């Protein structure tokens, strides 16, 4: 190992996958506000650039990295480019995901693989590449975005399986990386007010809300605040935590039993 370059980058760098919209965009805004250089990853270059511009206009430091995170080669190229142009990634937020509601009869092998590719395979590809640098530097934090749904809910067989995989990966890597001083944590959002949820009918939404003890939806900013905390030195003795941002739904969700 060479010790020629001990200079630190001007700001630690965070890479947020699927950062262009929804919860991911709120996470980008939070981390930029916390003083990190934020690399907005998204499939859509325009969407990523629009957010990065907005972050810069608000006084933050941001750039973009367009890549399909379910493709391991694309992930490697993205990290190579970011490390060369910005610096080592010190915070990785695995946020990219696809949701969806599918009763088990509609969970075809194709659907299953599509969900797994983004919701759990991509977490592996990005984390594996990021840890390569973090373990050498003996510093870094990974925050995964899983979901309360991993505990089980109607129409979530594929999604819950993938998100349970993320919980397992979070805990296993927290243990494995601990001697290197690298922390791995997760947030598990409950019902969050995003366009995806607003697409549902008023009646369906109201039914869903009855399952939340706090009786309201969370906001993307609620999730982002917990991600920002876990990513920061304020959480330097916290690893392997799965923090549910769910208004109490993970404690007990009053279900409104639908017909199977």
């Amino acid at each position: 190992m060479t010790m020629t370059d001990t200079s630190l980058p001007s700001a630690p760098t965070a890479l947020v996958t699927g950062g262009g919209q929804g919860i991911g965009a709120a996470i980008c805004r939070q981390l930029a506000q916390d003083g990190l250089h934020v690399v907005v990853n998204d499939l859509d270059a325009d969407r990523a650039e629009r957010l990065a511009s907005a972050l810069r206009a608000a006084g933050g430091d941001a750039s973009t990295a367009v890549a399909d995170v379910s493709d391991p080669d694309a992930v490697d190229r993205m990290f190579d480019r970011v490390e060369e142009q910005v610096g080592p990634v010190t915070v990785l937020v695995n946020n990219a995901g696809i949701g969806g509601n599918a009763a088990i009869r509609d969970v075809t092998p194709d659907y299953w693989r599509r969900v797994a590719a983004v919701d759990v395979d991509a977490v592996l590809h990005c984390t594996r590449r990021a840890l390569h640098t973090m373990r050498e530097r003996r510093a870094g934090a990974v925050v995964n975005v899983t979901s309360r749904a991993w505990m089980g809910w109607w129409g979530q067989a594929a999604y819950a399986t993938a998100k349970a995989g993320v919980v397992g990966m979070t805990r296993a890597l927290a243990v494995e990386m601990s001697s290197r001083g690298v922390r791995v944590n997760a947030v598990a959002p409950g019902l969050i007010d995003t366009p995806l949820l607003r697409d549902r009918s008023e009646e369906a939404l109201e039914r869903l809300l009855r399952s939340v003890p706090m009786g309201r939806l969370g906001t993307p900013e609620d999730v982002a605040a917990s991600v920002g905390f876990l990513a920061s030195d304020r959480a330097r003795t916290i690893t392997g935590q799965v923090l549910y941002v769910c208004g109490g739904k993970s404690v007990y969700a009053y279900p409104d039993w639908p017909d199977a």
Partner: protein
Amino acid sequence: MTTKRVLVWPAELPPGLTGLYEAVAALHDAAVVEPLHDLCDAAARIEAGPGDATVLVAVPDAAVGAHRTAGEVGEQVMGLGAVEGLASVLVVGDGWLGTDADDLGGALVGSAAVTTARSIAVRRGGTSRANVVAVPQALFGVATSQRGPLRQPTELADIANAAGLLLSDAGGYLSGQVLFVDGGRHLFSSLTA
């Protein structure tokens, strides 16, 4: 401008946690740390004013042994469920995970605190939030290792930071949760999965 108060219980903390209340209050922009004689006084003291007392920090393990049995402390903690309109954080040791069989009192109180926080989260979700910060039992003076896989020992500031998140608006959608400030010790217990 109203005075911001942080209600705390018990007044006396073990050496490993001395200064915790002041550290949390500082993060919460609170001017006054107000010790409660009994946890069941919380409702009356909020009403009594002056100012704004909407958060409470309790460290139930710390009260065991001093003047009270685990049963008495557990009863007080459970009484917290009757208080409306409060964001509370209960700081407990991690004995209830099974880390230390010799301190059953602390472990029992930890269980009571977790159950209480979860119960408040569900039964009083419309008005109150309650969460737990779990720390290595060693901070309560129990002769046991406080090592977690992360090597980094848990310090007062780490506990205050976690409590700060849970009590602040940033933690406004967090309720009934257990945040382990423990270097990852909890990962080896099935109670946390």
